[in-house]
């Protein structure tokens, strides 16, 4: 679970979040979170994003409202979450019980060359989420707290917002399919069967 720095390893965190995932659907923010979920195992239940920076949480909201019987996890980066931070107010207002957002906070824009984000300088995303009205939040800095985070994200009453401070080192690239039409269609088919393509 720990990187050599002593901080939580983002891929081990992803593995813990997705282990025995059942019907859980996952939206991953562009860049490293998308590579992380793909490294654990590409699946029709995954939508790894190639763009739409700032939109991951809202995609999760639309999906969670459309599929109330499924758990929806949004796994994203601190930079991506900061770009769509207002959506936390929108999500708090809608209060979907089946939506969890987990931010892998490496305090950097990793994908673009490791420039520091505001979380490196005191911005606390979990506090912002609470301020937005999300009641169930968690900030995790120790590996020992990861199981509680996983339980909250997977089983707790949503909306849930978790921030995990992760090691900033880059991991090997594991790329998902690049054709977005396939990524979308495969999740729709998973949920609705072949009928999805006749809608």
């Amino acid at each position: 679970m720990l990187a050599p720095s002593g901080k939580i390893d983002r891929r081990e965190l992803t593995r813990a979040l997705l282990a025995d995932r059942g019907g859980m659907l996952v939206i991953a923010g562009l860049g490293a979170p998308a590579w992380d979920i793909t490294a654990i195992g590409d699946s029709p239940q995954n939508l790894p994003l190639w763009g739409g920076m700032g939109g991951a949480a809202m995609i999760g909201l639309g999906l969670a409202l459309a599929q109330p019987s499924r758990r929806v996890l949004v796994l994203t980066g601190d930079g991506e979450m900061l770009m769509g931070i207002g959506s936390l107010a929108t999500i708090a207002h809608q209060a979907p019980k089946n939506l969890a957002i987990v931010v892998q906070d490496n305090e950097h824009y990793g994908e673009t060359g490791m420039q520091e984000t505001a979380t490196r300088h005191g911005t606390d995303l979990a506090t912002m989420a609470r301020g937005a009205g999300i009641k169930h939040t968690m900030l995790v800095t120790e590996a020992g707290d990861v199981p509680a985070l996983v339980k909250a994200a997977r089983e707790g009453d949503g909306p849930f917002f978790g921030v995990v401070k992760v090691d900033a080192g880059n991991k090997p690239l594991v790329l998902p399919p690049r054709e977005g039409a396939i990524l979308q269609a495969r999740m729709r088919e998973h949920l609705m069967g072949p009928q999805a393509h006749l809608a």
Partner: protein
Amino acid sequence: MSHSTVETAPDAQADWPDGIYALLKQYSIRQVALVPDAGHSRLIKRCLGDNELRVVTLTTEEEGIALMQGAWLGGERSVMLMQSSGVGNCINMLSLSSIHRTPMPMIVTMRGDFGEFNPAQVAMGQATQAVLEAMGTLVHRADRPEDVLPTVEASLKLAFNTFRPTATLIGQRVLGAKTFGKD
């Protein structure tokens, strides 16, 4: 001025907002994303009164594009209601539709258009159609009350039958332009 709101609202006699509501039901819309505009106030009220429609009030219009992406992913149809200035807030997020081929119908009330009073509305109002089209949106205008419903219906059909963003721009000729008493 008959009331104190600054923005324009359609004539209380106009029944096209009720007609749009009926179209949303006819086309099985389940999620309605919006940032309020006075021109949409009657339609918003109808939507809020319907338990089968989930009204999602956004902090910025780009959230609505992402919401429509998620709704379609989960098998629900959605629309976004906004004013023309909100189109500018959507630009990059609209790429979600071209990435995934996602239906995203938008119903846009125009400002900065026919007889505008507020200088601040003109820049985005005049750029609205060009910006939408630059991002691959099929755009149709309705500049007479009788054109509103056929145009909204065509935009809904185009979005859901051909999997892309579409927009109906409802012109200020239909909505009326408020003048703060300075006619």
